[in-house]
Each structure stands twice: as structure tokens, then as C-alpha cells.
């Protein structure tokens, strides 16, 4: 027992006294180091989980597919064929490696730059295209803007445009899994910018207090639209905040596929077995613009972008590793790329020509059953269309 003169008996636990007045520094002497196992040339440094050929090749293929999909859809937007798009260029490793380390039962609560997780789980290129074109095949029934994918079947919550509002959702999902005693966790993603929102703080805090099995994966990509991280926060990134809330955390090289895979696997294990949240900060770079509504060359140097696009590209780095294992070749590469490209172009063509959702879908699913006021509003709209058919778009079935 400590003599009472040496500690403060406080609700929440004993706190030792000290007669030295010392302020804790606002920044550590050294920044928290970043876990990596593959060097810049794709050579294994050491450690990391042994990843078998099948998973490695699937990871690589999906990263390449994601990159190709982003390029083609981005161009489609530029051509005026879809209204909006957001790329994941530079962050493919975070998307795919984390997805590969999870199981299908782990419920994903995304921000918006994580379509790779859906891709890994089996969302088809046609489904991506349908959502971007908001046609009849869209799972969202044409109600959301492009890249707001969602799939209950694949345990991936529909993307909402609001920043960080999904973080408390993830805690709720984890709470639900905890109540059911499921062998699964919730996984949520957000960016460096999203970590400034109030919901981030409360979500971490709640997750710690409720001992909820949730993985918080931060894609620290250096930019929140035009705001660099130096204007976003003054802490040593996001990883140091974990301790502040009582959450175990790690900083990982977000462009190192193997390191990410290992870290997420370990984190998932801890989250479920120990029933606790884990924070993973993945350091990366947003190579593309924030979205098709942005031109990032206006606020950051072009050579910085190019450096990360080429020399630090996560896909090339991982390719070197799988090639050195004899699991990949340039023939396989060109075959994959041309197949995916063709599939995407076909998907776009088909999606573009597919009928849009029917008018009735504007009024369904607001509630479980269509209430009378919405029926009336639908009726009124249809009457208006009858009177002015020329003003109503011809490709929307009534």
C-alpha cells in the first residue's frame, strides 16, 4: 500500500505526486516510427506475415484493377459521361491489403476513398459502373452520387458524403457485434482531415469506454482537399491520439502492402480477442486530386505529386516483390491490364445505355412503406410530367 502522502486517491485511480513541476512537451523528441517490411524496391527487409502466392497475386491484381478502374472512370467523368468521380490513386495498398487481412464478416464502415475493399470482397466492375451511372442496376437505386457505393451483402455500409460521421457508426456496429458475441469486428476508414471532426474524438473515446471491437484505419495522405496536415493538426499525426483516448495504436507505411496486411491482421486479432479498439495510422499520399471537382496542382507542387506517383507507387513496389518470388511476370501484367481495361470499357458502355431507375424509386425507401403524403407528391409529379412531357428526361422510365 502506498502511504497516502505519495499519491492522490482520485475517482478513476491513484495518481502519484511529484514535486517537480514539469510540463509534458507538446511534441515528442522523435516522431513515432512507421512500421514497414518492404523497402522502396520491393525487397523484404524483415518480419511481416508470410503471405502465400494466392493471396499475394490476388492483392496485386486487385490493386492494379483498382488503379485501372480509377483511371478509366476519371476519364469518363472528364468526358462528361458521369457527373463526378473520386480516385484512390496512391492508396491502393491501404484499400486492398487491409481488405485482404479481414474476413467477410468484418463490417466495413467507409469514408469514400475505399472502393478497393468492395472490390476485394467481390463487387463487380459492372456494379461499380452501375452506381456511377445511377442506372437501374445501381444498388443505391440512383439516389446517390457516384462513388457512394454500398452493399449489405458484402457487409460494406453505403458511403455518405459527411466526413467522419461514420466513425460513431462503426462504434455502434462494434457494439452490436459485441452484444451478439460474433467473431468479427467493425472496420472504419477516414483521412487526416476527418480526424479533426468532433465525431473522431468521441468515437475513439466511446470505443475505448465500451471496449468495442473496432479498427480505426486512418489514411493519412497529407492533404484534405487543399489543406496540408500542418494546417490540420499540430500533433504527431493521428497515431499519438490513440493513447490519449486509451486506444492501442500503430503507425504503418501505408504504401507497403505486406506491412499493412500484417498490421491489420494483428489488429483484428487483438480487437476481437481482447474486445478493444485499435487505431492504425497508414502514412501515404493522395496522388490524385481530391476529386473531379479539384485541381491539386493549384495548391501543391507538381514534382511532389510526381514523386509519389512514380517512385513511391505502392503497386509497383509490391509488383517487384511478387515478381522476385516468381509469382508474376510482365506477360501476366499486360494480360491483366488489358483484360481489366476492356472489361471496364465494356461495363461503362453497358452502364451508360442501361435504363435509369423508375420514377417510383424517388419516393420509396424514405420510410418502410410509402406514406400518403409522398404518394400524393408522386401523383402530382406524374401529372406535371403528363402536361409537360418535353421537359422530362427521356431516359428516365416513368
Amino acid at each position, binding site marked *: 500500500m502506498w502511504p497516502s502522502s505519495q499519491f492522490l486517491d482520485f475517482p478513476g485511480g491513484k495518481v502519484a505526486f511529484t514535486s517537480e513541476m514539469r510540463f509534458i512537451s507538446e511534441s515528442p523528441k522523435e516522431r513515432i516510427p512507421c512500421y514497414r517490411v518492404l523497402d522502396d524496391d520491393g525487397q523484404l527487409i524483415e518480419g511481416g506475415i508470410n503471405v502465400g502466392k494466392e493471396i499475394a497475386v490476388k492483392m496485386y491484381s486487385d490493386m492494379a484493377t483498382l488503379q485501372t478502374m480509377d483511371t478509366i472512370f476519371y476519364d469518363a467523368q472528364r468526358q462528361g459521361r458521369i457527373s463526378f468521380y473520386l480516385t484512390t490513386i496512391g492508396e491502393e495498398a491501404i484499400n486492398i491489403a487491409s481488405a485482404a487481412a479481414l474476413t467477410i464478416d468484418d463490417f466495413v464502415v467507409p469514408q469514400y476513398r475505399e472502393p478497393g475493399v468492395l472490390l476485394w470482397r467481390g463487387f463487380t466492375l459492372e456494379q461499380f459502373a452501375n452506381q456511377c451511372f445511377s442506372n437501374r442496376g445501381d*444498388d*443505391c437505386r440512383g439516389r446517390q452520387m457516384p462513388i457512394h457505393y454500398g452493399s449489405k451483402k458484402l457487409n460494406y*455500409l453505403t458511403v455518405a458524403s459527411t466526413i467522419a460521421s461514420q466513425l460513431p*457508426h462503426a462504434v455502434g*456496429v462494434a*457494439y452490436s457485434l459485441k452484444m451478439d458475441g460474433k467473431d468479427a469486428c467493425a472496420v472504419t476508414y477516414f483521412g487526416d482531415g476527418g480526424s479533426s471532426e468532433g*465525431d473522431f474524438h468521441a468515437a475513439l473515446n*466511446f470505443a475505448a469506454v465500451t471496449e468495442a471491437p473496432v479498427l480505426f484505419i486512418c489514411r493519412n495522405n497529407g492533404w484534405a482537399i487543399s489543406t496540408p496536415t500542418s494546417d490540420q493538426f499540430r500533433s504527431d499525426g493521428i497515431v499519438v491520439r490513440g493513447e490519449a483516448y486509451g486506444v492501442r495504436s500503430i503507425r504503418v507505411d501505408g504504401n507497403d502492402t505486406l506491412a499493412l496486411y500484417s498490421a491489420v491482421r494483428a489488429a483484428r486479432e487483438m480487437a476481437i480477442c481482447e474486445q478493444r479498439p485499435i487505431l492504425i495510422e497508414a502514412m501515404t499520399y493522395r496522388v490524385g486530386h481530391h476529386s473531379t471537382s479539384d485541381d491539386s496542382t493549384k495548391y501543391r507542387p507538381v514534382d511532389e505529386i510526381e514523386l509519389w506517383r512514380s517512385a513511391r507507387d505502392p503497386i509497383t513496389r509490391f509488383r517487384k516483390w511478387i515478381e522476385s518470388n516468381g509469382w508474376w511476370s510482365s506477360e501476366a501484367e499486360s494480360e491483366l491490364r488489358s483484360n481489366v481495361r476492356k472489361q471496364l470499357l465494356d461495363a461503362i458502355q453497358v452502364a451508360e445505355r442501361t435504363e435509369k431507375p423508375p420514377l417510383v424509386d424517388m419516393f420509396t425507401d424514405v420510410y418502410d412503406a410509402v406514406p400518403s403524403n409522398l404518394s400524393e407528391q408522386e401523383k402530382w409529379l406524374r401529372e406535371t410530367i403528363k402536361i409537360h412531357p418535353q421537359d422530362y428526361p427521356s431516359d428516365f422510365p416513368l
Partner: protein
Amino acid sequence: MATIFQGLRGGAAAALTNSIDSKKLLSRSTRRSLSERKVSFPVVRSDGSVNLNPGGSNARARRVDQLITNAVATKADSSAASSTSKPGHELLLFEALREGLEEEMDRDPHVCVMGEDVGHYGGSYKVTRGLADKYGDLRVLDTPIAENSFTGMGIGAAMTGLRPIIEGMNMGFLLLAFNQISNNCGMLHYTSGGQFTIPVVIRGPGGVGRQLGAEHSQRLESYFQSIPGIQMVACSTPYNAKGLMKAAIRSENPVILFEHVLLYNLKERIPDEEYICNLEEAEMVRPGEHVTILTYSRMRYHVMQAAKTLVNKGYDPEVIDIRSLKPFDLHMIGNSVKKTHRVLIVEECMRTGGIGASLTAAITENFHDYLDAPIVCLSSQDVPTPYAGTLEEWTVVQPAQIVTAVEQLCQ
């Protein structure tokens, strides 16, 4: 002193009980008026916190054409709350809420509660008292103070199979949760193409209390009424509090249940058998011929007090507690308007943008031809609620103003 609602007395009650097959509850739900009914109405006496007319030593006939109808899911049995055999049990409104909550938690293990101090403290108005002991503190979860976040947490949990009841310690605090309620709760069922449902209940005490200060006297129903995808109901009696709570929990849509700080101690005798109130229906409090008075929550009691004065002056007001704030029960309201041709709305919301404003618009749009006079809407003033007791009293509509309004309307 406590508010006492009693069943229909004397012969009227006997006639009713004989004609009711207690298994078929719809027989009770017809809107017939009793031919032998006197002009009577509930006299509400409440404890000191609701300062109403203390005249009348015992409460008399309760709301005559009371609706006991099914909600979406379960058939509930209900017998008339007749005064002859006095079935049922008496309780206070906050206990009725708890009873409804407890029954639903027993019935469905997915139902859970989250909010500040809802666990062992039992909630700021004791609605959740004892539940943490019974169900454990995971299922009755005390959250840190971050309304937006625990509302978000409830939404996330609802999307993956739970049925959370989210308590705002005071409704006004839920302004911090507006983002989650508007952008996610109301929206995600729609934007996900119907894939994810959000069967949450968001509830808490609101309205103008006794000198709680401006920040604790908010009327959130006005701010939330535009949000697509949510339903809003306001309870006003122990009977409908329990019924609406149960219906809200069983609903697949997100429902916001508005309680009033000053009504928690109302006492009433409610049936022992299980029952549910319909979320979209209004409640006929007092049928009449001269004027339709539409109200909800605490203002119902001011209206009924004014009704007593009006009856003495020879008026016959029809009082409807609209209960369902989104959507409005335009069926019952419309039938009433068609009968009386005059409408007075008495609400606690502020004048600008309140429930009364929307209701006025809805009635004008739909029933304009039946109106003999413009709709009159009595609301609170567009001021933050002052702390001084006398000033606070005059920010809300008082019975005297209701009487004057009816007199003017019926000229």
C-alpha cells in the same frame, strides 16, 4: 395531487363493457360518440409542477372516443378501462414509458438503450430506472457526453441488427446530434437503396419546463420536422406514452418520441393487457361541434382547462391531440374540420416555423373549402425562454388566451 383519469362512469361504462369483446380491440376504436354522454371532459390535476386549475375534486369522464389501435406488428388485447371493476393499474407517465420500454426489451433481445446516465442513475427523469440492473450495463449503456456520437453509434448499431433507443438527456442536447439525425438517420435507408434500415427510437424530455433556462427549454419538433425519413410523435398521457413507446420500438423507421419535462408525473390508470398506440394517429380528446382545437403534448392540458371555461360559456369545442407530428393525421383532422369549420391550433413551438405553421399550411391546402374562418394558431413567442418564472409562464400559451381565441373564432 396527481392527475387521475378514470374510465367512463356509470351506465355509459356498463353499456360499453357489455358491447366489447375484449379480444377484438377494434370494437373499441370506432369513432362513435355516445348518445348518452354528457358534456364532460377530463379535468386534469397534476402535481405541483403543472399548475392547472385545481377545481373539481375528482376527474371525470376520460376521453370518450379513445383510439386503441394496432401498430404495425402485434395484435394487442385491450379491455375498456371501465370504472366499475377498475381493472388496470395506476402509474405515472415516466413509469409508463419505462413499462413500455421494459416490455419491449423482454420481448426482443435486440432492443437496447443508450444515453447519458441511463444506466444505474436511471436517466435524468428516471425513465430507465432499474433497467441496467435487470439487463446489464451493455444493454443499457451509459455513454460519454457526445450526443452526435452516441446518436451515430445508435445508428450504426441499428444498421447491423440492434434496435437502440437513444435518450437525449434533454431534447435540446440533441441539436448536437442534428447531423447524425438529418444526414444519416433519416437518409441512409434511402441512399443505400433500401439495403440498410435504421429502426432507432430517439427520445427525451423537451419543451418549456419550470425555470430550466433557455437552453433547456427547446422545442425540437420544429427543427426536425423537415427531415425526410423520420417519424415524430409526442406523448401526453401515461396511456399514450406507453403505447407510443412500444410502437416506436417496433417500427422499422427511425422515430423521434417527444416527451415533455412537465408531464412525467401525470398519473393514470392503464390497462394490464398489452396494447400499442398507432404512430400515425391522432387522439380524440373531446368531441365537439363548434370549433376544432388541435394541440399536442403539454398544451393539451392548457386546452382542456380552457375547454372547461368554454363549456361554461356555452361553447362546444372539439379537442384533438394530434400526437403524430410527422406525418399529421389529416384523416381525423380533416373529419373534424369538415364538421366544425373552424380551427384553432395551440402549440408550444415558437411562432416561426413551428409545427403549427406546417399544420396550418396542411389544413389550408387540403380543407380550405370547409373553413368558415382563417385558421388561428397560438404559439409561443419567438424568444429564448426567459428564466424568470413569471416571464416564462407568459412565453407559452395560457388557457385564457385559448378562451379568447375561441370566442373570437366563433363570432
